[in-house]
Structures are given as C-alpha cells and as structure tokens.
C-alpha cells in the first residue's frame, strides 16, 4: 500500500472525535479455561467516535469486543478479570443486569445471524421487547428507519414479511445491523460487519457508521486496513492477546510506534 493512498484516505473523514470517554477498560484479562486470550488490556473508547480493532486472526479482537457487552457471560468457560466502566459504572458489577447493559451496548456479530422470522419481525423485535414503540405506526417507522440506515430498505421494502434467512449473506448482515441500530444503542459493537459485503454495500455500511458516530460510539473489528483507515478515528492494534498500540488512526497508519504495528499494517505479519 502506498503512503499517498493512505493519506488520501485519512483525509476523507473528519478525524476529530469527541474527547468524552464512554468506555474505559482497565487491566482486562480474559481466559477460556486455560487459554489466556486477553492479557492486561487498557483501552479508553471515546463517545461519538469510531474505534477500530485490528490485528491478526485469533489475537482476541472478538473476545475483547464481547467483553464490552458481557456476551462472554454466555460462554461457560470464559472468565473476565479487570474493570470495564461504561459512563463511569462498572459493567461487571454485581448490580448490573447484563440484559439492561446489552440494550445500551448493541452488537453485530461476525457471522450474520438473523432470526428465522420475517424481515420486519427481525428489526421490530428489539424495539418491541424494550417498549420503544407505542403503536404499530411507530414500530413501522422504526423498522423503516433502521432498514434505511443499514442500506437495506430498497431491497427489502417489498418483502418485509418474508423470512430474513432467505436473504443473501450480505443482506443478512445488513439486516443484523438494522436490528442492532433499531434499539438505539449508545454503543454499537460491530465484529467484522463488512466481511460478507460487496464494495457498494460496504460503502453504505461505512456511511452508516459515520452517521452513527454523530450520536453513538462505534467499535468495529475489521481485517481491512483501508476500512479501518476510512471509518475510524481511533485504532487499536491487538497481537496475541496484547494491546500493542492504541492511538489516533492517522497516527497508527502514518507513524506507528511499535514495529509490530508497522509490520502488520504494511502486510508483513498477520
């Protein structure tokens, strides 16, 4: 990758994020049984900012992401240590109901996983259980808005009552994004949301991410350097469970401090 390209890309999005800290992680360690998957990670995720997690496969990006909305609770052998604060409150505190947390911290998974229900029901489910819509009309509105934000409305508007599982892989992923944004989360965690998308849909999702940044903070895991460079303001580079470097995206891509980061973004490790 040539430096000029990269610099062009970095110019395309405004690279100033908010300085308010939304999530702050301290000394986070994750174990899967005896596997030490995340080793003493400290990260601050700013509000109204897109933060990208990059790193080679198996380095623990997904694992760390899942710590942020306590989805690791569902894995029996997973154990999380350390402290993660959302707006200053420890999300692993005994008083916290993970259900309530997850309504605030939404998630799009690595593999598209729509419910085997209609497209409409997929999107409407979250608002329904959280009581976000007072009437059918409001619900319809939320569904349409969410599908539009996920760039799926044009393709799906005529088949809202058809099963979500009948969509193509890329469409399914956008449906999952629509489902996640429908509940109006404060933080949106996206695990490789574009890995199954074509360039046009990818651009639409990136547009969406940029839009979401105005209200929420977004954390995105990606294997695409270009994508990280395009959409994020902050980038974290993970390697073998360690957070190697965390800084402004411009800094990481133009002038990384750690040689491992440099080798990775220039394609020499990974």
């Amino acid at each position: 990758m040539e430096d000029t390209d990269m610099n062009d890309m970095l110019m395309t999005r405004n690279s100033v994020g908010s300085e308010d800290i939304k999530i702050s992680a301290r000394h986070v360690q994750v174990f899967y049984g005896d596997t030490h998957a995340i080793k003493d990670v400290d990260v601050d995720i700013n509000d109204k900012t897109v933060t990208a997690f990059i790193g080679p496969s198996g380095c623990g990006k997904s694992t760390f992401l899942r710590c942020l909305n306590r989805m690791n609770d569902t894995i029996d052998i997973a154990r999380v240590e350390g402290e993660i604060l959302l707006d200053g409150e420890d999300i692993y505190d005994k008083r916290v109901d993970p259900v309530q947390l997850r309504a605030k911290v939404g998630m799009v998974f690595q593999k598209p996983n729509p419910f085997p229900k209609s497209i409409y029901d997929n999107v409407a489910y979250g608002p329904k259980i959280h009581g976000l819509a007072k009437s059918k009309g409001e619900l319809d509105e939320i569904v349409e808005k969410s599908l539009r934000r996920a760039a799926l409305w044009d393709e799906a508007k005529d088949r809202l009552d058809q099963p979500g599982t009948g969509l193509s892989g890329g469409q399914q992923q956008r449906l999952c994004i629509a489902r996640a944004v429908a509940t109006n989360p404060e933080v949106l965690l996206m695990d490789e949301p574009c890995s199954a998308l074509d360039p046009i849909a990818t651009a639409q999702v990136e547009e969406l991410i940029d839009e979401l940044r105005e209200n929420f903070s977004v954390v995105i895991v990606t294997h695409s350097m270009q994508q990280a460079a395009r959409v994020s303001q902050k980038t974290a580079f993970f390697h073998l469970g360690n957070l190697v470097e965390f800084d402004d995206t411009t800094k990481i891509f133009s002038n990384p401090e750690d040689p491992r980061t440099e080798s990775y973004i220039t394609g020499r490790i990974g």
Partner: protein
Amino acid sequence: MTDATGFDAPIPPAARVSLYERSAQVKQRHRKGAALRYLGVAAITLVLFFLAVLLWSIFSRGIPALFQYQAEIEIYYDPEILNPDGGPVTPEEIGDVSLRSGFERGIFLISLKRTLDSAGIDVAQVVADRWIEEAVERLSAAGLSGGAEIIAGAGAPSEGARLLGQTGNTLRAAASALGGDDQAGAVEALETASTALAEAGFAEAAATLAEIAATAGQGALSDAADALTATGYQQALFDAAGFLRQPDQFDDGDLSAIIYAANRRDVRDRLVANPDLVGETAQEGVPIDISVTRYLSGELSGEGQANMPPGFNEAQLAIVDEMVEAGIIDRNFRWSFFTNVYSQNGEVAGIGPALMGSAYMMLVVLVFSLIFGVAASIYLEEFAPKNKITDFIEINIANLAAVPSIVFGILGAAILFTLTELGFGNSIRGTALLGGLVLSLMTLPTIVIATRAALKAVPPSIRDAALGIGASKVQTVFHHVLPLAAPGILTGTIIGIAQALGETAPLLLIGLSVSTGADILSSPFSGGLLEQAQSMPTVVYLFAQNEDAPVREGLAQAAIIVMLLLLFALNFIAIILRRRFERRW
C-alpha cells in the same frame, strides 16, 4: 523451489491414465458400494415382507369381525310367558321374569319359531331332511346304494334308524361268528345278514355278503372275516342309524342356540317401561351366535367335525342356511363394537370404555408429561448450572427411559396399595387418572430427551442474536429457542404418547382390565377420569385371552385395527402440526 530441483532430475511424468478406465481401487470402491446397496435393499425387503405379513394377518381377521350377522326376528311379547297365571301383567311382574328362562328361552325362542314359521321354514322337516341326507351319504360312501328310498320307505327317520340298526346287528353277529371256529354257524349268520340286507333293500350288498358266505363255506373263515370288515357295511349302517336318531333329539335349546339373545335386558326394560307392548310384535335384530358367524362368513365349511362351529351340528347349520335363504339373516357393520362395554361374549363385546379410557389417558399423559417434560428440559438445558448434580439428573433421566414399562406398573400398584391402606385406593383403582399418571411417568423421559435434543439443535448464534439486542434469558428461550425447537418437541411428544397408547403391562397391574367399563360409558364426561376404565391395549389383551376362537382371532384384531388407526391419526396430526410450525419460519 523449482530452481533447486534443476534440470538434472526432472520429475518423471505421471503415467497417463484414461478417465474411461477404472483403476483397481475405483473398482473395489464400486464393489463395496454395490454390496452395501444390495444389503440395504435386502434389509428393507425383509422388513416390508414382515410388515405385510403382520398387516395381512391383522386385517384379514379384523375386518370381517367388524361386521356382524343378525337375525331379523319378529319379537312377540307373549303374555303367556310374561304372566303364566293369566290376567294383566304389571311392570313389577315383568321385572321379575327371569332373563334366561323367561326371555332367552321364552320370548326370544317363541319369536324365533314364529319368524321361522312365517318364513315357511319347517324346522322339524329341515332337521329331518338334513340328517337323512347325512345318513344316505354315509351309506352310499360304503357302497350301500339305494339308501334314500329305503329310509323314505321306512316312514319316520326313527323307523329308518331301527331298520338300519337291525340290519347292522345281523352283520355284527356274522362278524363275531366268523371270529369263532364254527364254520357252519358262521355261514348261517352270513346268510342271515345277507337276507336282512336284501329285505331292507340293499341288493348289491346282499350279493356281496352271499359271496363272503360262499368263501366261508370253503373253510377260509379268516379270509371271509377280512372281506366282511373291508366292506365297512356294519359301521356305515350304525352311523347312518345314529344320524337318523338325531331328529328326535333336536330340541328348543338347539334352536335358540343359533341366536344370541343379547338384548334381552333391553327388551325387558322396554316392557317394564311400556307394559302395553305385551301381546304385540316388533321387529328386532338379534345377533347370531359368534361361532355360527364363522360358518356364515365361510371361514368354517360346516362339513366334518373339524369344520363345525364348536357346539353346533349339521342340522342347526341347515336351519341357518334356510334362514339365509329366507333373508332373515343379514350382515351389518358392527357399530355397537365401538360403543358397547367389554364382555366375555363376543356377540356383544365392545371397546367403548377402552376408547374412552385411552382417550382420557392420552389427555392426562399429554398434560402431565408435556408440561413437566418440557419444563424440566428447558430448565436443564437453558437455566441449570452445568455441574455434578445436573449431570447426575441427566444420567438418571436417560436411565429412566430404559426402565421396562412393567416396573412403572409395579410402582403404580405400590402407590395403589398405599392408597388402599389409607382407605381411598378403591376409588382410584383402574381409573383413567391412575393409568394416565403411570403412563406419564413412563413417557416423561422420552419427552425430556427429545425436547433437550431439539433445544440443543437450535443454533447458538440465534441465542447470541437475541441476547445481543438485549433480550433476557427467558425472552430468548420463549421467543426464539422454543419455537425453533417446537417441531422436535412435538415429534418426541407424539412418539411418547403413541408408546403410551400401546402400553399394556403397567395398566394390567393397576387394574385397568378388571371392570367392563360400564361406568365410564354411562358418565363419560362427569368424572370420567375417576371411573373404572379400560384401555385399548388391555382390551386387546382380554380379547386375545377369550375362550371363543372368533373373539381371539377376530375381535382382538379388530381392536388392534382401531388402535393402529388411532396411532396413524396421531402421527398424521404430528406431521400436520410440524408442517405448520415449520412453515412459519
């Protein structure tokens, strides 16, 4: 890498093999494949063959048993029987008339006789003709031709019997004379017999005896004895005489045995309710005795002792033949089989209480085992912590599924015993409630195992998706996991219930075969669960134990057919429900 190899050691080109030729390895693979295929086909053929044999043996016997032969009889409410003292009869008096002597042997017999009369059937004549025919056949089989005229000439059959008997006696005397060493006496005896035969009218036989007498006259006594025995005259004469004595022995009991006065109680009740009927007649269908049914259906030919309905003889069948010809006997679908209570007597036995009992038990099983089974499975699968205790519970549920059904019966019997000691066991013994509870216990493990498998099969990504947008555990399970698992749960439940429907052993132990089930039929809805009931499999068991072959080999199969149809219906419902559930996704 390629550089290192260089040009000195070129990789030898692989020998070119045509795609059209099969290598030895491929051939062996094909052989194995073919062998496996043939094995599979053979196995399926075998299974289908046994299935066909099974179904054929059930349907070929069960279907005819679903039809019943009835005699349409003009019931005459004879005042003489109802009130031998004369005068008007009161309902109380009618109520006191014995069912057996007054109705079965009285009203019904008289009515049968009147019906036969008006159809132009002369019972005595039919009986006499039939026996004469038998006698003539017997005689001509032994070479004694002309029997018909001789018997007719003798007058009444009993006269014929006397004549044939006397003639037979002379033959017996001749035979015993031949056994001694008095040649002259023997010859004389033979000649006497010959004369007797000639006088009776058996000219050929008389000539044969004269020849034997000649043989004896030459001193070959033992040859003569052998020749005499070889003719078989003596036995034929005695047999025929025996047949001819039969008509006089035919009595009313023989006649009334043909019909089974099943509805005599109904008739009495009707009379008590409405004494005006006395002296009137009314048409009534009365079942034919179930053994005779086998003759009517052609299963028994009625020729020879082996093919005779047990307890009946040729003359009775002759009357039956006449009744068929006169159109008195007709064959109807046996609706009463589905509504009657159980009885030892095949003519009136029904599976009404068994159907009711089985339906109630299915209901109990459905409610108990589905609710508890699904609840237990959801808890174990979704909520319970995974630890030693849940492992232990899991293993024991699997073990429970393998426990023989009779053990559950013993458990039920033990509970019953305890309840009896406490004083209210009798009220629950043999009820559909107890049966259903025992069957529920038996079905529970099946449902738990099937439900857990169905829950496990739901992809974890669906749970993640629901949890990820903030659904609670309970919402996740009930909104997403359970609907996806429903078809599997349903299938497991239906299989469990089908198993329960066919289960016999535990029900026998808790007394579901002891009552006729009349109570549950008389009050099917109020307290049906708490009435003494029967179940389909126990009634099949009872039928199969019956002393009458037509019940053992007819009604039992008919009940099995009903049970099979119920099972098919259950499976059909399961398939439909599953389709509907699946289409929603």
